[in-house]
């Protein structure tokens, strides 16, 4: 189900057609994806879906002007008319001298087959509807569930269980009029379960667990529903806590909430629009010595790896923050030209927070810090991209003497990102490979919690 040679030839034809009809430079991205999904409700198959998508995206540079266009109607005549109209539209837009394709010296040269990163599983081709149904149901525990009272535990009951299994393939080819040809192919197998449990008073608690991997053999299916139930059960009986400063441990599962705004603030768009609290920090030590964040986009067989960005620019393994020093802004060709800086890549690809403090797991951290709040999820809140201030609702547990004491309710974590990351005390090594950002369990000292 990958793009075939006819489809790729159509993309090349569109590029030539655009050049012959007035475009000075052209970039085209052709994508094709197929997804099969099986949904499960309370132990029975509830939904099946089949989704085949193809799309062509054109970036047109015409008379010093620029526009982006896309269509999923891929008949040749229709595309000719679409491109002709698109060029007319670009000519109506105001000129922008900073727009151009990336230099050929910066684009990926080593992504010709799409298979270089080992993200394609041939097993995908042998998937059948029956196999998918079996995998979707493989984790379900609903039909075998008995209320906990029957087992002599504190009463709780499983109200509902929803699960989804999907397998998909994604294939893309990016070409440009400077000679770029870059291809990326990946398969993905995913399982996710969400459950609702109820306590004796009728209070309800939900829990979720999932896994995803490019290779079917690596997908952890068996304990998905059971883990979701465990996560829901653990929340029964929450208590309020006092406002104050706490050591806070962030579970790897939700830690990206605290790093993504920092990465966004290192993005060229925010910087150029003066809407970034990281403005003016390149080359400066604004974080602590124990914080190093790498971009590792070439990790073979791992979710999120890419050899090139959306412009076709080659990604590279590099430090984003090294021993507290900001080493990288994410500047595409356009933004870099506007800012008068050297271009890099459009965005971070596969971020990894490097270990700090000598703990390998979340449990190690809890044992070290003894008394803290363990945050296992965020519920609402916001951050300010210009100031770096944030305020997030948190879900999690009070930890005393290294052990979970009780779930907390109605609590908020507030502060600003620079101060928060300067109070980093631990970064473990337990990031799950199914996440595109490898952020392990992390711990911060002196965090403001209001409740």
């Amino acid at each position, binding site marked *: 189900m990958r793009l075939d040679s006819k489809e790729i030839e159509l993309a090349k034809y569109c590029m030539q057609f655009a050049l012959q009809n007035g475009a000075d430079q052209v970039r085209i991205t052709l994508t094709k994806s197929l997804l099969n999904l099986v949904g499960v409700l309370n132990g029975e198959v509830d939904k099946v879906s089949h989704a085949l998508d193809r799309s062509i995206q054109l970036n047109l540079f015409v008379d010093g002007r620029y526009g982006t266009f896309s269509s999923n109607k891929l008949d040749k005549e229709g595309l000719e008319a679409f491109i002709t109209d698109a060029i007319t539209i670009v000519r109506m837009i*105001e000129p922008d001298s900073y727009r151009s394709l990336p230099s050929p010296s910066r684009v990926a040269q080593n992504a010709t087959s799409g298979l270089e990163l080992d993200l394609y599983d041939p097993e995908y081709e042998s998937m059948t509807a029956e196999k998918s149904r079996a995998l979707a149901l493989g984790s379900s525990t609903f039909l075998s569930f008995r209320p906990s009272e029957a087992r002599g535990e504190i009463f709780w009951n499983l109200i509902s269980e929803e699960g989804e299994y999907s397998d998909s393939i994604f294939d893309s080819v990016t070409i440009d009029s400077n000679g770029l040809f870059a291809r990326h192919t990946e398969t993905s197998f995913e399982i996710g379960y969400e459950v609702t449990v109820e306590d004796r008073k009728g209070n309800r608690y939900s829990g979720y667990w999932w896994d995803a991997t490019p290779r079917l053999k690596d997908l952890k299916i068996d304990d998905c529903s059971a883990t979701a139930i465990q996560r829901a059960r653990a929340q029964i009986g929450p208590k309020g806590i006092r406002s104050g400063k706490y050591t806070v441990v962030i579970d790897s599962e939700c830690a990206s909430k605290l790093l993504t705004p920092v990465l966004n603030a290192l993005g060229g768009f925010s910087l150029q629009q003066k*809407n970034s609290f990281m403005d003016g920090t390149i080359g400066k030590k604004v974080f602590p010595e124990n914080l190093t964040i790498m971009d590792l986009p070439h990790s073979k067989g791992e979710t999120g790896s890419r050899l090139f960005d959306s412009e076709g620019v080659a990604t590279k393994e590099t430090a984003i923050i090294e021993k507290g020093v900001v080493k990288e802004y994410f500047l595409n060709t356009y933004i870099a030209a506007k800012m008068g800086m050297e271009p890099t890549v459009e965005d971070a690809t596969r971020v990894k927070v490097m270990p700090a403090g000598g703990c390998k797991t979340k449990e190690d951290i809890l044992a070290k810090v003894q008394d803290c709040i363990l945050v296992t999820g965020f519920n609402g809140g916001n951050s300010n991209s210009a100031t770096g201030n944030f305020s997030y609702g948190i879900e999690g547990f009070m930890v005393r003497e290294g052990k979970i004491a009780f779930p907390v309710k109605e609590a908020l974590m507030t502060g600003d990102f620079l101060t928060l990351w300067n109070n980093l005390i631990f970064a473990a090594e337990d990031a799950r490979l199914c996440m595109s950002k490898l952020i392990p369990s992390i711990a911060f000292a002196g965090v403001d919690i209001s409740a």
Partner: protein
Amino acid sequence: MIYSKNYYLDIFKVDLPVLDNLVSTGLSGGGSYCDLFFENTTYGSLLLRDGAVTSGGSHIDFGVGIRVLSGEKTGYAYSESTALQDMLACARSAAQIADSSSEVSPYGTPNPSRGEPNPKADRYPMEKPWRECSMKAFLPFLTTLEKKVREKDGRVVKVMATLAFQVTDVLMYNSSRELKWDTRPMGSVSVTAVFTQEGKMENKSTSRSFRTGAEMLTEALAEEISADVVSDIDARFQAIRPKGGKMPVVMGAGASGILLHEAMGHAFEADFNRKGTSIFSDKMGRQICPRGINIIDDGTIGQNRGSLNYDDEGIPGQKTYMVEDGVLTSYLHDRLSAAHYGVKPTGNGRRESFRYAPIPRMRATYMESGTAKASDLIAGVKKGIYVDEFSNGQVKIGEGDFTFFVKSGYLIEGGRLTAPVKDINIIGNGPQALADIIGVADDLTIDPGAWTCGKEQSVPVSCGIPTVLVKSLTVGGE
């Protein structure tokens, strides 16, 4: 806009025998109901940045989604081509949900949606259809808007303005042989301004979005948006993060209705209740908030972002009372949940595009006006918070717990608005907050912003609320 039937049949290159063939194929595995959703969407956008409109584009999305229901199970597939062989393959994929036992359809009730769409009843006619206008004609609106923003506040250092429009043609057919069609326009303008004062930065965004044609791009709209984006900037620079705790909260009329959407509206969607995950799943017919309170989801407001002539299952757009006089009276239904509960669909079956099966979704959700005066509600609070606008709300449907970020607001001290506040959250529980409402003012305002609901799929919605006083909520501050 509602064009003639042939306009839609021509776009999708189908006729009634083809539609019947597809439905028959969808039901060939023993399914009890099949529907087809054809979509042709044109998107256009222009972006002003650094003083010039230097980016723009257009996009086309075209295809057909085929759904087969077998009891309460759903089979779904779509095709980006309306060539017969592609659509038949798609129908056969969707048919796989059914086992071989033929079931009696609970979805076949043809009323109230039988009958051809009536152009005179159109909720969103266009005077200047977007697709018939040159995009060049839209450029002056954005440059005027930017000029007005800069003229109104000398602290503005950056302005980014976007015009986005889309027009969607839909054709719907089902195994009850109901044929419906519609053309849905949407125009949205958003602007973000960055301000600087004494070395500090602040930003503010605002938007307007309507189901209308290009006639919405007037000088008056540019004036309104520019005034909005610079309003209250002094307060933002002065704002403090107050002491937290439990206290009364007054929600301002209009945009704070998003709390009603997130914290209560989702829990009224029938799929969450059918599956037993909603906190309201066992409360139908019960008093859930004080008498006198009515909560509505409405698809009938002319040119409103959430309005629909028909939902995405061909059910007429309508006004649905979810709470009447404090009593939970209706969930929001698609055909599937309506059949489950044995009630009529409420016209809430919506989808992001032909790529998705419809599910119950809100349209314009609001609380009706009460009898109090907003000033009296504020005057009655000794110490509390007044919220102008929320953002980034999140709710846990099962628990009903919600957290909302306060975009702008004020302290209430001694019955008066005093210091502006920022960067705080309001935390609470949906049903409890409803039960704790102790005052509703007479100033219902539907917010005109570009709200998009992201439950599994993105759909345009709107929200509104009169000024409301809640007895006690947790405010997270210092």
